[in-house]
């Protein structure tokens, strides 16, 4: 009894310490010579791998700026004062709306004047609050719903509906060039989540039908399927579908394609069908895992391939060689971390041209920072330079289309944004 009481007393003491820690953090003071970047990262859950790479990108980029006081090797004229340091603040939101909110409050109280969004749950939960607080946020995810109306969440990839529109245009050109006269039949094969269902909107279907497609229907696959989605794939076969469009992450798209190949479904297999996924299903992750098994799979709106000879990839490689030589990150979302961090620093740097660091507010960063980012070259990691402004939250103006061919990533086209989502 005494022993158990002691254990409980210790547990209570731990709780009390936790409470006091929280209180202390709530009233924390900020160092006015430090610029903070970061935000919430879903390091637990379906996006954990992506977010761990993003966070690593943030951390390495912060070290680079602290060492060199420039925002990128190709922007030697865009400098930060020597006495200003960059610090990354982060918390694991576990893809939970309420956790994202408490982390947001915590980081804000510690001096973070910007924010970042991992995915739909946090984006949907925070978008109103970010707008009320006039805090600009970068995002790795481009779910249409939390970008409408366009307010203070800025993306570096095209909105998923625009990605799907580009893929539809690309496929239709190929279809017509091959001499097909019948309408191609299209269906959604997408994740059963906000991410996946975000493209299942009337405007998207109307666009596809206007383009010349026959819309067949939708099939949903769990974000991380426990069993191969055989039923969904056979439904596509039964309905003579030629093209599928969907948003999935790699743990969803890889087993789906593996099963499709087993069923003889693919552009070069017995049943001719092309699978298109939006960029959370990164070919840079997909190809090393699937090899030639993934031939024909298309991914839209993603960054350059990791072996591309562009300044941004070279910069990322340099960061890894300098700051994590023995612990390199091979995930493409490392590029996103560098890119988002660069955007947050650039927004703050621009704002500092209008005010001093001790008077810097999130509103300054939004109005004199994010809104003034024009033709921001991110080393060609994205298909076009980033431009933001009031009402313009979609940083790029084109959609890159990549396909697996002979076990390699090949860029097969790029298409302008069609702004499918009604509010954008």
């Amino acid at each position, binding site marked *: 009894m005494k022993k158990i*009481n002691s254990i409980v007393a210790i547990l209570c003491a731990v709780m009390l310490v936790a409470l006091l820690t929280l209180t202390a953090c709530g009233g924390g003071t900020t160092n006015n010579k430090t610029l903070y970047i970061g935000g919430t990262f879903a390091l637990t859950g379906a996006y954990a791998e992506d977010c*761990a790479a993003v966070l690593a990108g943030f951390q390495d980029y912060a070290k680079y700026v602290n060492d060199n006081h420039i925002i990128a090797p190709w922007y030697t004229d865009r400098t930060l004062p020597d006495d200003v340091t960059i610090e990354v603040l982060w918390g*694991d939101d576990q893809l939970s709306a309420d956790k994202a909110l408490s982390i947001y*409050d915590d980081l804000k109280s510690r001096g973070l004047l910007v924010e970042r969004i991992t995915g739909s749950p946090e984006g*949907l939960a925070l978008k109103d609050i970010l707008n009320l607080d006039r805090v600009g946020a970068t995002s790795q995810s481009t779910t249409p719903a939390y970008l409408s109306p366009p307010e203070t969440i800025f993306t570096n990839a095209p909105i998923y509906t625009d990605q799907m529109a580009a893929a539809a245009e690309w496929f239709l050109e190929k279809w017509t060039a091959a001499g097909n006269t019948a309408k191609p039949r299209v269906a959604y094969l997408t994740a059963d989540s*906000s991410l996946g269902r975000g493209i299942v909107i009337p405007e998207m279907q109307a666009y596809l039908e206007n383009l010349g497609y026959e819309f067949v229907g939708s099939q949903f696959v769990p974000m991380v399927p426990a069993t191969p989605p055989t039923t969904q794939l056979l439904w596509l076969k039964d309905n003579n579908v030629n093209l599928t469009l969907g948003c999935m992450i790699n743990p969803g798209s890889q087993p789906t394609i593996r099963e499709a190949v087993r069923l003889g479904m693919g552009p070069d297999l017995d049943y001719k069908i092309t699978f298109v996924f939006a960029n959370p299903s990164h070919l840079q992750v997909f190809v090393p895992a699937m090899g030639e098994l993934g031939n024909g799979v298309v991914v839209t709106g993603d960054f350059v391939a990791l072996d591309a000879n562009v300044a941004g990839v070279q910069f990322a490689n340099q960061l890894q060689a300098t700051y994590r030589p023995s612990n390199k990150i091979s995930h493409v979302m490392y590029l996103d971390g560098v890119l988002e961090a660069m955007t947050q620093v650039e927004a703050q740097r621009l704002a500092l041209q209008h005010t001093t660091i001790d008077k810097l507010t999130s509103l300054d960063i939004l109005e004199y920072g994010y809104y003034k980012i024009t033709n921001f070259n991110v080393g060609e990691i994205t298909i076009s330079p980033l431009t933001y402004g009031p009402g313009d939250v979609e940083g790029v103006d084109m959609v890159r289309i990549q396909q697996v061919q002979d076990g390699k990533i090949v860029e097969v086209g790029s298409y302008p944004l069609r702004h499918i989502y009604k509010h954008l």
Partner: protein
Amino acid sequence: MSLPSGIFQESYGQDMAIFRTKLQWILLLAFLVVLFTMPLYASDKILTITTMMGISIISVLGLNILTGYCGQISLGHAGFMAVGGYVSAILTAKLGLPFWAALPCAGLAAGFVGIIFGLPSLKIKGFYLIMATVAAQFIVIWLILQFRDVTGGTDGLAVPRPELFGYVIKTKGAYFLLVMIIACLGTFFAKNIVRTRVGRAFIAIRDNDLAAEVMGVNLLSYKLLAFFIGCVYAGVAGSLLVHYFAFADTNMFPFGDSVWYLAMLIVGGMGSTSGAIFGVIALKLLDEAMTLAGPALATAFPAIAAQAAASLSLIMRGIVIAIFLIFEPRGLMHRWELIKAYFRRWPFSV
């Protein structure tokens, strides 16, 4: 309930009172003063955490009536919260009703949906009832996603903030007070309902439903009543949640939350109103502490991947639940009672 030595009750009313000594009343008043003045001195973060705790307490109090008192285990509580949240969102955002009208409607709607999913409880119990309530969670969310024109589907639904006499409750402090007032009322109601004939019937059903039926307790009506009351709480909590975020989205009501609500009951102590509150506070604090500890650990020990450090929260919650199931299945409340008794009897405690 045990009392300090030398205190005797002289009437039935005194014996049944929840607070029976002056010290208890003083502590209650002090607690309420500290609680309701929090917006004056607490940071935004603390107010956010305590507001979320308040909403969870309301929900878990309902689950406690359903599971802790009546023995009907539910793993669909977040789904019932979603019903309340969306009813409130639709009534205020689409039909223009004030929050104060939408809030009771949210509770009632969730209560009626609870009755529907509670109907199988007459025929099935235990593991099978758990599966039926899990189905409730997924069916509710599926339906919300299908009725896109009304619910917004995956886009969610923007929800207006509550107003009181023209004053928009949008600051964290104001919303905290709103949630705490409702949480206090909910606690008062929950504490009292189990001391009534209905509460005794619930307990009888939980302990042995066959014996309860033989004694004249109508199993169907009381089980459904438990579902109704439990889900009314969930509906109110759901309504408060969506108005807090000014947004309704199915992601706010994940299945995982249903599991955690049950875990909170286990940790706090099933079948005890105070236990439900203890459980929410303990697990939420643990969660927040681990969220803070993740980045600190990753900085202090760079060899640990940030991802591993961040996962501590889930790991710790799992460990705590396992510890309680093994060492103290009756929860924190029971342990608290033992500790109080230990010190009251000191130096004669064993």
